[in-house]
């Protein structure tokens, strides 16, 4: 499966992954995995249902004025406003553009 491949490559080849809360504005990333904090386990499915699934393209397109919270995230072709706490649940890896 294509998505599975991306997921595995990122994990096994130790390609640099980071949290969505830490990426620079307007750079394309791909979702690697979604892990909710133990205090709110339901966040995993909530985030997955709005499109945060392994392999999906994601970019942060705006951040709030105070402390960069909340963020506007483009996931696929949709835009969602999420908070830093939710962005910290999402592991991503940068998409390297081929020339």
């Amino acid at each position, binding site marked *: 499966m294509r998505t599975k491949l991306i997921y595995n490559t990122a994990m096994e080849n130790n390609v640099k992954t980071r949290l969505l809360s830490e990426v620079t504005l307007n750079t394309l990333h791909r979702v690697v995995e979604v892990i909710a904090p133990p205090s709110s386990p339901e966040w995993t499915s909530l985030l997955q*249902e709005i499109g945060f699934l392994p392999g999906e393209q994601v970019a942060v*397109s*705006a951040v709030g*004025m105070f402390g960069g919270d*909340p963020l*506007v995230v483009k996931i696929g072709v949709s835009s969602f*406003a999420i*908070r830093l706490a*939710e962005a910290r649940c999402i592991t991503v890896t940068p998409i390297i553009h081929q020339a």
Partner: protein
Amino acid sequence: MKKSVIHFHPQGTLIALVGNPNCGKSALFNLLTGSSQKVANYAGVTVERKEGLLTASVPAARAIRVLDLPGAYSLNPRSPDEKVTTDVLYGRALGERQPDLVVVVVDATNLRRTLRLVLAVKRLGIPCVVALNMTDVAESRGIHVDVNALSQALAVPVVTTIGVKADGEAALRTFINAQTFDSATGNVTPANSPPNTSVNTAGDHQTIQLILHQLGLDKLVPHTTSDQIDRVVLHPLWGSMLLLAILFLMFQAVFSWAAVPMEAIKFATGWLAEVVTNNMADHWVRSLIVDGIVAGLGGVIVFLPQILILFFFILVLEESGYLPRAAFLLDRLMGSVGLSGRSFIPLLSSFACAIPGIMAARTIANPRDRIVTIMIAPLMTCSARLPVYALLIGAFIAEREVAGIFSFQGLVLFTLYLAGIFGAMAVAWCLKTFTRSGRLPRPLMMELPNYHWPTVRGIAIGLWQRALIFIKRVGGIILLLTILLWFLASVPGPPDGATGAAIEYSLAGTIGRVLAVIFAPIGFNWQICIALVPGMAAREVAVASLGTVYALSAAGSDTAAALSPLIANQWSLATALSLLAWFVFAPQCLSTLATVKRETGGWKMPLLMAGYLFALAYLASFVTYRVAIYFSQ
């Protein structure tokens, strides 16, 4: 006692529309059902239930009910609205049977996300059809969907629709008419084995990736216009300034644009009173018409232009897709008092009226945030307070220009709105600080839909409905209370040889003098106290009541004359300011309290609300009155 629920299923076929939020489902519903829509609530819950009959069904005798279910991202509900959708589809909603056919509306520009719902519905085992909506937008952005291939891949019939175009539903209608439904039983037999409903988001995702790959649709086509607009609108600095400018323009417009139509309405009421006075003998009926009905209703209807301008702005912001952006910009601010940006939309609606605002709070998934939003919604300055503010500002605040462009009266009005907002923030902050639930982390996860040009038709329908509701209120409850007040203010008549105005001897005068004892510390005279009583039913009635009270006090003079110069002469500035402060906070609306009772399912919240608002209003008026007296000495 728990009420038993009777399961009554109307005969005929039931079709349900489901889809993600913002997929154009409601527009499609409007096309399918035309004017045959009924809006009610689902049994036991307060989620709005929209049902209609399919127009032009074939054969014509066949009645097909169409149900517009609340938008949902999945069948794993995250709000009371989404729960209704899930319950209906599973056939476990009270008073509603499982549909015979489910139309899953998907956004052709965003199949990646919307197709997951199709797979989930398919697993339920109910017959379903996919309505590929917004195909016009998709085509214009170069997204060509092969309908046959999609249908084959999903193993579900697919038809294309355009919800915003007349006849855009034709293909779906043809499909429905071609179906034979087993409506003899009126019920779908529940499957013996429970349908396979295990949530498998990742597996579905892979299936959809595969389908999109087969169809050559796995390339992302972003909505560039929306992205470009968002670069400004969501910018931390420019976006915030834009939001402030929009809100400020809104409140300036309420005062300046409405001036001409308001003058026209005032002129018309004055003329009407004069005609009646000149053509009728001096009789109690004339007094009822001139002092009661014309003075009372005229005083309220004059504010229709301002209310419509306010609603116009809210409707335009709502239709264009700007409101969720505003909620994003304000999320941190709301978060500081323990709420989320989601509370912004119900609170903004509350500026028009607290009742739709309180009902809109249903979209807030978190129960605690929802209750807090409901509790502070009446602090937002609703349009019914506008007549009172407008009257007092017009009478006591001299009109002049500030910095060459702003109207000083507009600035004062803006300040009153701010007072309500800060009051609400303070209450929410207290609830956050003093309750444990206020400090738990809660997710935001709010979609920012693509921008749309608001349609003239949509705005016009919205304004027309609002105008109608307002006029019905004027003609109904306000008229009734105005007449009642006129009666109380006229009976019993003054004794022979009385020196004061007739109203001082009436029932209303007596009530007013009793209440005046309570309200004297905050500067209210007995005329104000009388007006406050019917004002409980609807705030704007307070103005009508003052109109009636003063019309009857002014013995014999030109009664329907404007109220504003009259009170400007009789009240001190401190009293006027105190009354303004009172109206910022006071729980002066029984329909709001009734709505809160319905939405929260008990008397606890409405009683709590009335109590804290009353205390807050008294305190605010007391401080305002004392400070104003101190400075005017």
